[in-house]
């Protein structure tokens, strides 16, 4: 019975059926990921699909043929698990995007390595041309993805400077073009020739690696999530190419749906940030050097609460108001109300700008995305380095659910745990109004001397209802 069972499990039909179940689960899971209610389940479904695919592959007859194959597979899987699980478990929420970049990169690296082995193994033999073409495509794109993701990781992790790094003038695009041509031409030569040296593939991998570095280096840190999404789509396509070379249906389907959906997602992400994908790739966006001037912030002991009506008056008679949003705005989903307030103030001739701290919220671009969702024009969103010199000229700063990113202790108190972190220097403005739920400290769990400054007033309550109260008061004035 068991023998019959084992034989049945190893039949191609059974394994193919598993593959179909696997990619069905993955597609179903992915569609779940697009809705907030179904997302958690969707992700788990896709993970089950993946597990089915891996197990089915291991069941293949002859899979464990040859000495040491089992050991090698187990070693590979174990290393992967030992690295992947703790990395995913321990990464801080805020470091999530670079973690995704890293995971994407190793995926691309796997494609490139597999292509390399395929090439070595089959070259000059009975390898059909079709496999060769697909493998070479996978080698190039996988290698670009691996190195590009590495750079993206470095930038987000602040190992590399977040500002764009590029060769002067047009030479950057020229270098990229030359590298791409080198890759493609070598690939064509390799595919057409019958006896090229094995080193050729290494040359292609190196040229593609350079291209990956060159593509991502000129792009500013703020655009990294979009770049990661693009590289994600690239890796998907290269995985599909590997699937074609190996004629493995589940790899073709899974790789291709990632390639297609990743492309759309990249576009949507760029749109959400009011950027276009070509302009991001062209690079050179954002990131100047700030020269913060130290200000003396003495901490008192008393906090002054205010009312929505008072805030409305203060705001309406200001010339320039800067809104500094934080996680509190995200939690209260107050972005639309904030936008209304901005409109009401603009109707009264007040200049309104938004001060976006790079780590406000929980993800890079969190605030940009939320405010973009509320149709706030992109040019009103100012990055920290641009807005900081403006604070002395600003009459009122409205801090909405942001705490640590405005904490002057980061500048003034060397003993503070957040000392040295760049902040929005809201304490340089004429007056500061802080919208906050309570006096609880922020994510870093430290006190904010800003709240005790004589120029600061506090409006306690949920950000959304506070802002809408202020808005109606402004409109009534």
């Amino acid at each position, binding site marked *: 019975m068991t023998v019959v069972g084992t034989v049945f499990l190893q039949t191609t039909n059974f394994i193919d059926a598993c593959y179909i179940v696997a990619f069905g689960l993955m*597609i179903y899971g992915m569609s779940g*990921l*697009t809705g*907030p209610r179904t*997302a958690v389940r969707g*992700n788990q479904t896709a993970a089950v699909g993946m597990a089915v*695919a*891996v197990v089915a*592959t291991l069941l293949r007859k*002859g899979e464990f043929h040859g000495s040491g*194959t089992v050991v*090698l*597979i187990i070693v*590979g*899987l174990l290393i*992967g698990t030992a*690295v992947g*699980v703790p990395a*995913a478990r*321990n990464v801080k*929420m*805020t*470091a*999530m995007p670079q*973690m*995704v970049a890293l*995971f994407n990169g*190793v*995926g691309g690296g*796997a494609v490139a390595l*597999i292509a390399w*082995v395929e090439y*070595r193994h089959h070259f000059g033999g009975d390898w059909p041309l*079709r496999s060769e073409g697909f493998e070479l495509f996978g080698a190039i794109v996988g290698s670009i993805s691996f190195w590009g993701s590495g750079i993206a990781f470095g930038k987000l992790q602040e190992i590399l400077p977040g500002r764009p790094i590029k060769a002067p003038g047009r030479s950057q695009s020229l270098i990229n073009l030359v590298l791409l041509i080198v890759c493609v031409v070598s690939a064509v030569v390799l595919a057409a020739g019958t006896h090229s040296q094995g080193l050729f593939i290494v040359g292609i991998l190196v040229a593609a690696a350079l291209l990956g570095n060159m593509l991502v280096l000129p792009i500013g840190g703020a655009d990294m999530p979009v770049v*990661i999404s693009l590289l994600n789509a690239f890796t998907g396509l290269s*995985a599909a190419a590997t*699937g*074609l070379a190996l004629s493995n249906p*589940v*790899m*073709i*389907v*899974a*790789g*291709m*749906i*990632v390639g*297609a*959906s990743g492309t759309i997602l990249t576009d949507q992400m760029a749109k959400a940030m009011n950027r276009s994908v070509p302009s991001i790739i062209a690079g050179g966006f954002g990131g100047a050097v700030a020269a913060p001037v130290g200000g003396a912030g003495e901490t008192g002991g008393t906090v002054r609460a205010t009312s929505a009506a008072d805030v409305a008056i203060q705001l309406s008679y200001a010339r320039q108001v800067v809104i500094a949003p*934080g*996680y509190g705005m995200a939690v209260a989903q107050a972005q639309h109300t904030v936008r209304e307030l901005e409109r009401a103030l603009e109707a009264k001739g007040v200049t309104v700008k938004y001060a976006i701290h790079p*780590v*406000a919220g929980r*993800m890079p671009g969190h605030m940009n995305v939320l405010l*973009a969702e509320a149709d706030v024009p992109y040019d009103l969103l100012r990055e920290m380095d641009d807005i900081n010199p403006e604070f002395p000229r600003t009459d009122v700063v409205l801090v909405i659910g*942001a705490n640590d990113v405005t*904490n002057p202790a980061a500048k003034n108190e060397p003993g503070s745990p957040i000392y040295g972190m760049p902040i929005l220097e809201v304490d340089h403005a004429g007056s500061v109004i802080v919208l906050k739920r309570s006096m*609880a400290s*922020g*994510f870093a769990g430290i006190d904010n001397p800003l709240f005790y400054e004589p120029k600061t007033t506090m409006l306690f309550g949920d950000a959304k209802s506070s802002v809408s109260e202020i808005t109606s008061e402004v409109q009534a004035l």
Partner: protein
Amino acid sequence: MDPLVIDIAVLVLAGFVGFAVISKVPNTLHTPLMSGTNAIHGIVVLGGLLLMSESSGILEKILLVIAVAFGTINVIGGFLVTDRMLGMFKAKPEPAKSVDAGSSGGADASGGEAAGGSRS
């Protein structure tokens, strides 16, 4: 039919499925979706598994072990990270606490987190 034709047909259809699935995604789900699809392309690990038994020579074996390890990191890390990220979107009464950074992120409220972390 040539198997290549069938494979390419599958490829094209899968492309349309990919387009159709991601018609409209709320902005807040962009990062998790990216991460989830990222895990799915870890399917390349199958390539490593399939080639392992055919490989010969120490170099090929080393390359494949690395490839399998890379693919596994991609798959396991990708799905776990997505799961944690999605956990963040569940309603929380008091967001200022450090629970959202997961079980083992015990250093959240300390100075280590402070240097690079997000603020509320």
